[in-house]
């Protein structure tokens, strides 16, 4: 059975339909990429799944339980935790303390929480910044902090919202490495990305949104050859590049 099932989820803002009957599922232990051009409704969908928004229609089922409209903290406690695209550090707390807040979800013991937090800091390359105020981190550090903090909650499903945007090639490689390691440790991942090349090599499945609707759902190899995806999202030029097998860092 799938760990997360999104069934016909619809979210409207007045006249604007941000998500129109979107359905897909995320299998346990897999990496699912959620891509689409700006304004496709990716972050809105994330907000619907994580409880920040209440969808007007449809259901979100996590681990066999209907979580539609549950408050965010309850969804997080069940094990579905997300990061924010626009980073939200707890500014006047140190980097370690930020991660501790996450770590306290599974234990009330400070020692245990510390061990877990330090581990997550190491995994996300933040140990050097441990005692800095989170508000003072450079943007790359803040992105990694988002991830470390979510990770510290011990999630079953980790939902990453554009954590790779703005990274250079080396950083991107390191980030992909971390994601793969997380998957190997048993965490299911759903990754929203604008940088398509980033997610393609590691995803088991890619869901493509455009204009609020799902236009494709398939393995990456077929996604890059999907006519609609190329048209809607990549534009003719980019599509050709990918078809020819060019991979690597995004250039724009």
């Amino acid at each position, binding site marked *: 059975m799938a760990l997360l099932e999104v069934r016909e989820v619809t979210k409207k803002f007045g006249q604007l339909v941000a998500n129109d009957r979107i359905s897909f599922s995320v299998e346990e232990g897999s990496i699912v990429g959620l891509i689409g051009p700006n304004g496709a409704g990716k972050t809105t969908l994330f907000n619907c799944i994580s409880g*920040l928004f209440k969808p007007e229609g449809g259901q979100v089922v996590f681990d066999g339980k209907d979580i539609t409209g549950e408050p*965010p903290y309850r969804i997080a406690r069940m094990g579905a935790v997300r990061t924010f695209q626009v980073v939200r550090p707890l500014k006047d*707390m140190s980097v370690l303390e930020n991660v501790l807040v996450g770590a*306290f979800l599974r234990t009330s013991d*400070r020692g245990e*929480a510390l061990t877990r937090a330090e581990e997550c800091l190491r995994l996300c390359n933040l140990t050097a910044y441990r005692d800095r105020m989170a508000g003072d981190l450079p943007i790359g550090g803040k992105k990694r902090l988002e991830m470390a903090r979510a990770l510290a909650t011990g999630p079953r499903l980790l939902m990453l919202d554009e954590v790779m945007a703005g990274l250079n090639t080396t950083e991107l490689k390191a980030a992909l490495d971390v994601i793969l390691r997380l998957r190997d440790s048993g965490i299911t991942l759903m990754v929203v990305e604008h940088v398509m090349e980033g997610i393609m090599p590691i995803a088991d499945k890619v869901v493509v949104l455009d204009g609020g609707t799902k236009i494709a759902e398939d393995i990456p190899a077929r996604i890059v050859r999907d006519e609609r995806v190329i048209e809607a999202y990549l534009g003719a030029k980019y599509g050709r590049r990918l078809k020819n097998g060019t991979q690597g860092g995004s250039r724009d």
Partner: protein
Amino acid sequence: MMNTKVIDLKDALWLLLLAVLALLPLVPFVSGSFFGMHVLILVLLFASMAQAWNIIGGYCGQVSFGHSVFFGIGAYGAGMAVVTYGGLPWGGILAGMVLAAVVAVIISYPCFKLTGHYFAIATFAIVEIFNRAFLVWEWVGGALGLDYPVIEEGLANLMWYETKEGYYYCALGLFVIVFGIVRWLESHRFGYYMRAVREGQETAESLGVNSTAVKLGAMAISAALAALCGSFFVQYNLRVDPPMVMSLDMSMKFVLVTILGGSGTLAGPLLGAAVLIPLQEYTRAFWGGLGGGVDLMIFGVLIIVIVIKEPAGIIGILAGIGKSLARRGGTAQGGA
């Protein structure tokens, strides 16, 4: 882990401070001065009040101007136990704390849906409502208030007439209880959750923190401790009426002492009280004769200056001095 078991330097300093405070009345010069003891007692009381407010206002970031209501409930709890029912204050103190926590939760629940100034003004409104309701409520003494009868002094009745030592040690006890609780909270899960809610409610929720529960819990603890301070206040004044305890000015004292000392820090409330209270009491003593009000004029200007110059409070000033000293020390060493 390194900092779990061993007492760190900061805690050692606090213990040292407590030892000094405990021995202070044994110094003849201090204990001989009735006024000096009075000021010390007020410093400890206001530090405790500010620390109680600091839980919800500083750590949890919900700026309440309603704490005089809880303070008043505590004062009336003790006052009614002694005056109305002729008993010992202790049951009333406990009842006042519990009642304050319950009232706090009931009124905060709808208020937490308000943001910014709307929340602040709602808490003002609640103070005014309580103030006036108590003025006409015969059962609690109405506008006349409650006057303590002359009864036997001592710890059982929590009352002394001739000397101030008894009150001093009670105030110190109060200080230890309130600061101890906040110190404990600071290093445990609830303390981290409070700060997370202050820094970003949605972020905290995304990490599994039930922010409503955290805010209500913080408010309940804060209110109960404010009530405890209120019952000490009434035992010390031997009288209570609504404007004395449930007023906007009293609420402001909770906020001002904390913010001027440094909100969201353990030492801030003590620093605020240690600077502001002696200043208030001594300006009153020195300039009180000049037609009244001069002490509060100076106080008003001082508030303006501190808020404008150092929004982090006195603790911010100290941190600044510490930093520049360290820098100077560093360059001196470098030069030598």
